[in-house]
């Protein structure tokens, strides 16, 4: 029962962060929210009994992809719509 509630909360958090990361105009905010999305996805994999995938998602999705996004935003522009 409580497990289900935890899982539901994780999923709702994923939906919220996905929506906000699409909606926001600040690409850094998008990157951060995408990071949060990735963390929650990793937790969801953990709950779904997939430890291999959870490690991969934690390492690649949460660590490296965020870093790559931050670097790409650094080398380009921070705001989605200029002027």
């Amino acid at each position, binding site marked *: 029962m409580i497990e289900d509630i935890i899982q539901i909360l994780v999923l709702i958090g994923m939906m919220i962060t*996905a929506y906000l990361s699409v909606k926001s105009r600040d*690409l850094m905010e998008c990157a951060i929210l995408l990071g949060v999305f990735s963390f929650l996805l990793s937790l969801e994999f953990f709950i779904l009994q*997939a430890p291999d*995938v959870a490690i991969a998602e934690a390492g690649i999705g949460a660590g490296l*992809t965020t870093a790559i996004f931050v670097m790409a935003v650094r080398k380009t522009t921070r705001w989605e*719509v200029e002027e």
Partner: protein
Amino acid sequence: MIFNLPFITVIIVMFFGFYAMVFRRNLIKVVIGLDLVESAVNLFLVSLGYVKGGVAPIYTSAPSTHMVLPTPQALTLTSIVIGVATTAMLLSFCMVIYKHYGTLDTRKVRRLEE
């Protein structure tokens, strides 16, 4: 109903991704949308293999056969690595495009190309 929530999440996240890819004009936003779609597909695969009350497919304690299905997890591993490869390549494209055009807006890029 409540056990379908992973699948509803998959659909909703996937459509957010599509929304970002189709309606947003920033190239990095497109990549973000792609990332979201890919995460949604990964979640779909993993939750497809979930067995209620099952344990991870690793023989640690007594030989239990009540395990979650292992194949989707293997496929998801492949898919995750492919996803990070694609993301890295697309972002490097973005960097080069910004270098040459000074903008990431797709419409402006197209206009500058003429």
